[in-house]
């Protein structure tokens, strides 16, 4: 056992599930390898033992997993479905977007399911273990899409997600799992639907989410030494998107750079730009800009991977371009 003190992002997720299982008998977890094995990332480690019969191993059937989740939800249970990777959730895509997301709209019966997606890239993961597909789920009405960037948010937002009566797509960043640590779990938190000012600034607003928040903060530090103060907004939830906080930030700085790890076409960054341009046109002192991953599948080789997605370096460069306008 390592001697580091501190709770990792992954620990926080496990803790939140443990709390939910303890406090609400309707909660159960269903996914591949989540039972005795504790999950591919150990997100459910020891939970099967602590809560017998409530953490179940599923066959490799994302479609059936999601259909089953909806069925249990109709009966009043609150399932947590762990997808082993976000990239595999597309096998169950139909059940998520056509069964779960439409249940309330069609029948007035809420669908309190939580789908946990380990998403985002880590070096060497390649095209099918790295995807960021929150925008595709956000596109469908009837889903809530969350992207916590901190250990504290991973904990409190997962708890809140399980308690919500609507289907939640909970995007957990795989890189943050072990790399992010906090001293303790929070006792209170911003509610789902509110964005957080991760860093106050004056000259430019970066709006981003999940692991990119940390890249943006690093870029802000670099730019601070050059005399620029960058404001960083952590969206926390992609849908609903806290337009008010974003627009208020642009009101302060006049410049907007949206950063996302996902692909460019129709991503979360595009949605933000559309909203700010439509609702805060008179606040912009320069054209709003986006920085996304390249429009190709996520590459495997670390050289390619490092160039494929935004990094603190490329975020700072994009910010400088905008600051010089």
């Amino acid at each position, binding site marked *: 056992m390592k001697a580091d003190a501190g709770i990792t992002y992954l620990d926080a997720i496990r803790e939140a599930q443990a709390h939910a299982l303890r406090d609400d008998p309707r909660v159960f977890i269903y996914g591949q390898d989540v039972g005795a094995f504790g999950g591919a990332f150990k997100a459910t480690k020891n939970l099967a033992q602590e809560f017998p019969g409530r953490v179940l191993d599923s066959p490799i059937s994302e479609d059936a997993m999601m259909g089953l989740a909806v069925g249990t939800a*109709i009966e009043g249970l609150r399932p947590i479905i762990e997808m082993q990777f976000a990239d595999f959730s597309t096998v169950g895509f139909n059940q998520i977007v056509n069964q779960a997301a439409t249940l309330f709209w*069609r029948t007035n019966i809420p669908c309190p399911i939580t789908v946990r997606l380990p998403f985002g890239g880590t070096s060497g993961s390649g095209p099918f273990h790295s995807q960021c597909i929150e925008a595709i789920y956000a596109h469908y009405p009837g889903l*809530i899409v969350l992207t916590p960037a901190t250990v504290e948010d991973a904990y409190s937002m997962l708890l809140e997600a399980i308690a*919500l009566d609507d289907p939640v797509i909970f995007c957990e960043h795989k890189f943050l799992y072990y790399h992010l640590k906090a001293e303790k779990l929070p006792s209170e938190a911003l509610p789902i639907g509110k964005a957080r000012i991760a860093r106050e600034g004056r000259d430019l607003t970066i709006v981003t989410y999940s692991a990119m928040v940390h890249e943006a903060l690093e870029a802000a530090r670099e730019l601070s030494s050059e005399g620029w103060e960058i404001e960083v907004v952590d969206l926390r939830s992609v849908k609903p*998107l806290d337009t008010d906080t974003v627009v208020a930030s642009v009101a302060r700085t006049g410049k907007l750079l949206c950063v996302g790890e996902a692909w460019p076409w129709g991503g979360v960054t595009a949605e933000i730009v559309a909203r700010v341009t439509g609702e805060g046109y008179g606040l912009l002192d320069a054209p709003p800009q986006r920085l996304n991953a390249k429009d190709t599948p996520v590459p495997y080789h670390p050289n390619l991977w490092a160039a494929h997605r935004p990094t603190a370096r490329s975020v700072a460069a994009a910010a400088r371009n905008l600051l010089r306008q």
Partner: protein
Amino acid sequence: MLQTVLDARPAEEIVAGREQMLAAYRFMLLARLLDDKFAALYRAGKIHGGVFLGRGQEALSVAVGLTLKRSDVFAPLIRDAAGRLAFGETILDGVRTYLGSALGPMRGRDGNIHRGRPREGLLPMISHLGAMISVVNGMLLARRFKKISGTVGAACVGDGATSTGSFHEAINQAAVEKLPLVLVVANNQYAYSTPTSRQFACDSLEEKAVGYGIEVQSVDGTDLSACLKIIGEAVSRARAGAGPQMVVAQLLRLCGHGEHDPANYVDPKLKNSPLGRDCLKVAEEFLLRQKWADESQFAVWRSAAQHEIEEAVAQVQREPSPDPFVEEWRAISTERLGEMHRENES
């Protein structure tokens, strides 16, 4: 009047034999006449969207609906008008959904056969075939969690659905979890225009059961008494904990895929074979032979059913349509998280 008499009785009272056959026949007749009415309304231009009938499948369908208890779970396929009525769905629910009444169970947000009452065990299908089976699985698993025993879930599908991935995943899941699922496959020989020769390569759909490790039975879908017997056995075995049960019924679709489809592709040889027999006629002949009913009885029941249907249609024609300016345009139940988009404000 027919409806209330039948709704009042708990399912256990209908015993095999005469009472069950008579009850089943009356539901089949009601379903047939209701389907005819929907077809007529369609041809009179009164229905928006498609109309999907169950002509020829009433015997199998009613067997499922009648055998299940009200506390069971039922995911019908598009041609299960008879089964729905036998399970307890009202004529009004069907008429309202087809005519788009704001008072229907789907409130105009979905239509035709996409209707149900999930909390009452009748699942409103989505259009993707095979997708409802795992939802039934989920409901059965939940009941197990809640320590509710003795529930059975029936999912009905056609031959076409057996090719889908969700069909495969769901049966496998039910088998692994040993759920009390009864999977009824109505092989009516065609999936829209696709004959079974282009749908599967195994000799018979029953062979699939071996692959999943579940029990399977075959039945002549045109024969009501056979359907009642076989479905009854399957439901009992599932209820007793024998794991998922598959029943494959052979019959012929006696209508188009939808009312827009004249179905000229159906092989006339099939129409003229025993497979092509009208199960309603077969049931009538059986009842006459057994002297459990006579022609005048049939006429009385027919007229009563017709009347009930017409009253329902007349009532629903007067009901309001959904009003887009009053409609709550929010797809999630948590109000504070609903996004307001400027373009949605009117």
